[in-house]
């Protein structure tokens, strides 16, 4: 019983530390590139390390936009309609 309770606390604790760690990191990086705090925090909490990659990508795109570099959306060459219909 005690072993189970301690393991439960350990698993939840490690996962919380992991999530909080990535959230904090994304928050710090996001704040340094002027991203919305809620966006950076949620990206870190939901995506972990990939959230950091997404924050950096988003930061790069936003910075390029601020510098006047236009990252045009991809031009759709061909569209296939709904494969389920």
């Amino acid at each position, binding site marked *: 019983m005690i072993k189970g309770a301690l393991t439960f606390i350990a698993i939840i604790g490690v996962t919380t530390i992991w999530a909080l760690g990535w959230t904090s990191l994304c928050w710090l990086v996001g704040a340094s590139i002027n991203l919305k705090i809620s966006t950076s925090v*949620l*990206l870190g909490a939901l995506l972990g*390390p990939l959230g950091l990659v997404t924050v950096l990508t988003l930061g*790069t795109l936003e910075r390029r936009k601020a510098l006047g570099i236009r990252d045009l959306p*991809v031009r*759709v*060459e061909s569209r296939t309609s709904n494969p389920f219909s």
Partner: protein
Amino acid sequence: MNNPFQNKSIEIPRFTTVVQSSEGQPRILLPITLAVMVFIGAMMPWIVIRPLGENHNSFNLTNVPGGIGVLITVLVAVVTSSIVMIWRRVTGMIMLSLAVASLGWMAAISGMLLGVVSSFIPAIEVAGIDLSKAQVGQGSGVVVSVIFSLILAFLCVRQLEPIAQYSPSFEFPVIQLASLIPMLIVTGTVHQGWLVLGNPEAQWHAEVPGDSLLGSGILIMVLWLGLGLWLTSAVFRRPIVMRLAGSLAIALSFVTLVYTVLVWIGGRALVWLLPSSVEGWASVNTEASLYTTALSAIAIGILGIVGIVTASRERVIRLKDQSQFGSLIIPTSDLFAYILMFFAVLWVIFKIVAR
């Protein structure tokens, strides 16, 4: 813009939530189904122990003391989030995603801890290969849990500003979609036996999976990063992101291919060096997963090149809001959920039959 994941019956809320959706509210069934899939992943093997010459033993969260408690806690969080979703769709969806992401992270952390566990096993050197590293491996449940929690997370982050500006409509870019398939295959095959030393029918045999090789930890990490970058490029839809994902895919493909070729050459060399099949023990068999990994690596590389070349003019599969089957009209989002449910039911039936 056309969004098949939009629930037409619900209007954009006037209240301010943590996030603001740019294009209506997501539907409720798909996020819940994705959460169920993460739970199914948690029931599948997370850690596989391969003792020499014996059957595989697999473990997951339910085998750990307190593991059931963890699952029940997450389940309570999922049910609460689902109830919140009825009134505040995006907020509930983010809560749901956070709940199941914790399961995904537990799976990922268990995979990372494997390196620590295997370091405690004394080295067993056979022809220069340390078989101790091959005795502990990651199970398929980790891939299932992490992938479905990531998909749900990406569905959520699409609702965030300013990401919503970069991802205005829900179309499936063909290259990104196609690239994910070989990458997902490699995430599975890298944990399976590439070489089998000895005969599986004999008393002693040992498997050498891809994850037991030197530097494979970094390779697996970059593989997940590559997967994430393709998913990111599917959300952001900007040529620069696509080129970044494509470049990483090419590098990843090259390294994975080198690994498989070296293992294949090593296996051939062992066959040549070892005395010819002493009681079946000295045999070296190259497994199908090695060839599958090599072919997938080639596909990743080719798709990476195609991705870079066609970064600014891509092909997409555009989904309609709903699909019609005779007189039955099903929203596309729900259709995806039904397909996933079908596979979930198949898995349950398989588990019952195999028991």
